[in-house]
């Protein structure tokens, strides 16, 4: 799939000015990564399989939460952040599993790794596409939570958007490393959350604490910004480690 479509001109917004030297190498890396991400997203936009199933699953989770938890204001303020981030965690692992299953079914992961682009670009492209899909689900789940549970979740939209974007990036980066290495493993659907959730606990912790600070009455903006910075540093550290070990993890 990817091999045939590679030859099409890449419709990317990335800086296409490929100069010489290190700057050129970085911009070509970004271009390749954007092309791989766009490949994944285009497949997804044509079938909409992952997006629809993830979104429906997320909406179902919200409805289950709304039924299962008491709806008085104080209890909801305490439990809504947990609901939002549980939904992100669950849908994220489902999306990751499916996104990489696609490469396995057509045996295109090998082609992708053999392609004359840096493996780093393959990893970044996969992570970008996954992050966008997780974000799309969060965009559906968060308003539903706000409606069903009657909480002013969007009182401070900017910090909320930031923390959710950072969370999606973190899930996608770490998840892509392990989903790629689990590709050939039989029980990968169970093992992915077994591996990911303990490693992502700081991410979910920071996410829930930030969201809780935002919907508190009155909102604790200072606390929210602390957790946004925390998650930013966490994402940066995990990105560095992922970039460093991805290649030695995926080669046979």
């Amino acid at each position, binding site marked *: 799939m990817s091999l045939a479509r590679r030859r099409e001109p890449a419709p990317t917004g990335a800086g296409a000015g490929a100069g010489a030297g290190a700057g050129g190498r970085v911009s070509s890396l970004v271009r390749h990564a954007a092309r791989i991400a766009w490949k994944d997203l285009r497949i997804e936009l044509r079938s909409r399989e992952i997006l629809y199933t993830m979104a429906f699953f997320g909406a179902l989770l919200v409805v289950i939460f709304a039924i299962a938890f008491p709806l008085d204001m104080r209890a909801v303020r305490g439990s809504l952040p947990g609901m939002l981030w549980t939904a992100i965690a669950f849908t994220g692992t489902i999306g990751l599993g499916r996104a990489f299953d696609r490469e396995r079914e057509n045996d295109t992961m090998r082609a992708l790794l053999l392609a004359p682009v840096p493996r780093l670009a393959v990893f970044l492209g996969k992570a970008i596409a996954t992050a966008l899909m997780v974000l799309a689900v969060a965009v559906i789940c968060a308003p539903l939570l706000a409606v069903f549970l009657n909480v002013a979740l969007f009182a401070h939209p900017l910090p909320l958007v930031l923390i959710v974007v950072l969370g999606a990036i973190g899930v996608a980066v770490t998840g892509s*490393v392990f989903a790629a290495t689990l590709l050939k493993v039989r029980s990968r659907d169970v093992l992915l959350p077994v591996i990911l959730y303990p490693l992502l606990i*700081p991410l979910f912790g920071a996410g829930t604490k930030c969201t809780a600070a935002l919907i508190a009455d009155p909102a604790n903006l200072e606390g929210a910004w602390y957790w946004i910075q925390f998650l930013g540093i966490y994402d940066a550290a*995990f990105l560095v480690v992922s970039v460093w070990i991805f290649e030695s993890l995926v080669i046979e």
Partner: protein
Amino acid sequence: MKKPTIPVFAVLAAAGIATSIYAIFFHAPLQYGLNEDGKLNGSSLFFNQKIFYFHTAHAMLLILAVASAGVSSILFLLSRTAPDAAAPGPESRGAMAFIRAHGSMWDDIASASVDVAVAFGAIALLSGSIWAKAAWDVWWNGEPRLTITLLLWLVLVGYVVVRRFAGPSADRITAGMAIFGGVSSYFVYTMVGKDSHPASGTNGVVATLGPGMKGAFWLTVASFACWYIALVVSRVQSTRAERELRELRERGLDLGVLQ
């Protein structure tokens, strides 16, 4: 790792643990704190403090096991990188060549250390929980060092699960888990906040032990360290034997000797 390593350390451990149990219960004094007026104060633990000897020894060895798993995971991944990427030229010797020549050994050490770390971590968590019931009257509180130890232990159990069920690529995946787990535990520690665990370090519990307690404590640590070495070495050897047996079987099947 010569042949007598395991028996020697196992015997040392058995003798040491027996002696340290005697020393803990019959030699080391009871722990109690006195106020200036000579009355007992709130930090008195009496007999409950005895569990500290085993608890702290296991927690120390847990850290040692996790550190050795992390370092050998990094070395294992380094041994898998392409030769031209890390070491320029065919004449390169020294550290990198040594790392590359012992690729599977690093993996065996990492896996053995994690197996042992799961056991030692379980003992450290359980004994700590018993102590907490006596000292704080709760089995568990969300205190940083407890949380981080529990999360670390969960990563380790996940490591063993993956190792068992992930098939031939388990070695790479688990090496990644070990490295990510190390990075993650720093963030967990930053996240969970204030510490009420008995202190460690230069002003901590271990450094300020009474004279009768100090000997018993370090004897316990040394005995369990011997036990730890015996366990890790035997795990490494059995993993290596398993792999050699598998390879021999495959070769036999290829040659048509076995069927």
